[in-house]
């Protein structure tokens, strides 16, 4: 089959690799009809996530058609399914508490040592996201082996296009959980850093959950426009002092909840960002943390900090004093996708949630490398790239 493989920093290629097979009884094989490039794939593309090997197949947002099932899969051939990026067994302590991304059993035993050392506990398995999370081949491919196919995939009824439901795999539930983690109350002001797909979905979700106003922060005009279309007020951090503006726009109160939808590679010419960049460049496992620091400083006393943005290492100059003295709560984590898929599919069906507005480009899988390059370096216009293995290659 054809699949997008990682070769090194800023080097991804579509290669011919062996087709996957059913390996375990609960597996299914999915023929991919749509797969997206995620903002978090750019951390892999930029080489700041350790444990990615040359030849690894990337991609964790995908959907398709069931072509083969293992003896214990509950899926049926030809069903259309969206596959969560988190691989979850459904029967361990964490899965039973619907903490699906914390699954004990999905990360192969020999791969668990890495994160057990790094984080104190082994993390769950994810598709196409380094050997820290299991080294599972990803979804930017013609076919994918889906373990625990009786737990993860959600079957899509007739009447939906791929573009309507594809984002149930990650960014829609991720934006939703980001807002849920912000414990939004009626009348709240919510500030969201980052108007990428997760930030945009967080804006939409926060408004659905009753926020009086959502203020979105970015520097790309097109992305700020999308946030405005979704009903947010916007701040362009290249034009405006963010902390001061947030105070003024919330009556001197400060946002009740802040959402960091940027993560470890935050931009901006702040001194701390430059220092973080140096440390990332020399590979000392440092996260860039300008956004998180700013979000904590902005948050009102007793407010909530929600972090859907991805971090993988250590952060310097973390304003722990501000966290403590202001009595903030922080909630974060990889998304427990399976917890949200049913409800969100229902909301899509009811027309409550728009999932298509952010898709800027649809490309054949063969042009995936171009998709990565532009999503990384032309962020203003390339807001979301969907790859279609079946699409004719015009180029």
């Amino acid at each position, binding site marked *: 089959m054809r699949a997008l493989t990682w070769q090194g920093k800023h080097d991804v290629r579509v290669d011919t690799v*062996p087709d996957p097979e059913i390996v375990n009884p609960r597996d299914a094989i999915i023929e991919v009809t749509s797969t997206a490039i995620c903002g978090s794939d750019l951390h892999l593309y930029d080489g700041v996530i350790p444990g990615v090997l040359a030849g690894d197949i990337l991609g964790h947002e995908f959907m398709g058609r069931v072509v083969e099932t293992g003896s214990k899969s509950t899926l049926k051939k030809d069903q259309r399914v969206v596959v969560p990026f988190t691989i979850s067994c459904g029967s361990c302590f964490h899965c039973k508490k619907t903490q699906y991304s914390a699954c004990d059993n999905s990360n192969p035993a*020999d791969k668990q040592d890495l994160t057990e050392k790094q984080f104190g506990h082994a993390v769950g398995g994810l598709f196409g996201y380094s050997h820290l999370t299991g080294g599972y081949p990803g979804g930017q491919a013609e076919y994918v082996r889906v373990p625990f196919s009786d737990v993860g995939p959600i079957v899509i009824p007739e009447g939906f296009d791929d573009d309507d439901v594809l984002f149930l795999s990650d960014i829609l539930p991720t934006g939703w959980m980001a807002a849920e983690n912000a414990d939004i109350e009626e009348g709240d002001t919510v500030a969201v850093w980052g108007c990428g797909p997760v930030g945009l979905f967080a804006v939409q979700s926060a408004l659905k959950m009753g926020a009086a106003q959502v203020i979105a922060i970015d520097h790309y005009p097109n992305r700020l426009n999308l946030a405005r279309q979704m009903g947010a007020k916007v701040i362009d951090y290249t034009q405006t002092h963010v902390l001061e503006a947030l105070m003024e726009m919330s009556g001197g109160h400060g946002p009740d909840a802040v959402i960091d939808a940027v993560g470890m590679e935050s931009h901006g010419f702040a001194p701390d960002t430059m220092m973080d960049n140096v440390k990332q460049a020399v590979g000392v496992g440092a996260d860039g943390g300008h956004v998180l620091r700013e979000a904590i400083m902005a948050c009102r006393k007793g407010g909530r900090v929600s972090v859907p943005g991805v971090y993988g290492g250590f952060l310097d100059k973390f304003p722990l004093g501000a966290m403590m003295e202001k009595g903030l709560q922080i909630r974060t984590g990889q998304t427990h996708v399976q917890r949200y898929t049913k409800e969100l599919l229902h909301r899509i069906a009811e027309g409550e949630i728009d999932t298509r507005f952010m898709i800027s480009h649809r490309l054949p899988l063969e042009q995936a490398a171009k998709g990565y390059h532009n999503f990384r370096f032309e962020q203003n216009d390339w807001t979301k790239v969907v790859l279609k293995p079946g699409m004719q290659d015009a180029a």
Partner: protein
Amino acid sequence: MTYHSYDHRTGAEGARDALTERQSSLFWGLGIGALAGASAYALYAARRDRDRLSHRPADSAPGRSAKQARFGDYAVVGRTVTIDRPRDELYRHWRDFTKLSEFMENVKAVEPIDAAKDQFRWMIAGPAGTDLRVETEVVSDKPGEEIAWRALDSSQIDTEGKVSFRDAPGNRGTEVEAIIAYNPPAGELGRWIAKLFQAEPALQGRRDLKRFKMLMETGEIATSANRKSDK
């Protein structure tokens, strides 16, 4: 006393002091004074504790998690994992020694030597393609609670092991604790075994217990292999 040494060592803070002028010099003075006081107290307290507690009472942690985990000639590795299945089911699965190779990575096969005497031969993948032969007999068997085995004189390694099963609190299933003690033999084999175990103590046992948990909780052992032949 230590005030001065702190003062010299914190040149950066000194510079910042000058920049932010008077109001913060008082702050820094107080801060450094407090730091110096705290560190002097810590030194004092450490010395006092050393004197007073040269014979420390045992804590509640299992012995193998001690910083020095050797007991006489034996090295001991062990690990506890909670498995969300009933005690009896886990006990029964482990009790059939011939099935242990399903989840123990380095164990190629376990065959009965004399089933009536509960004696088994474990074939363990060794260095350079050779197999290591470990021969054991069951020395303790408490159904639903504990299984222990010890090497026979004919075994290539002097080792003993025990797995015990306890109800986990809050209906979380069973706490499974596996402990292996071994006394590495002399010679080339001993050096290899020492390397295998000491490079990453408990690594293999830890992985094997995780695979046991996967098998019992999910019915299969997770793998990211895309094809059976890659497993």
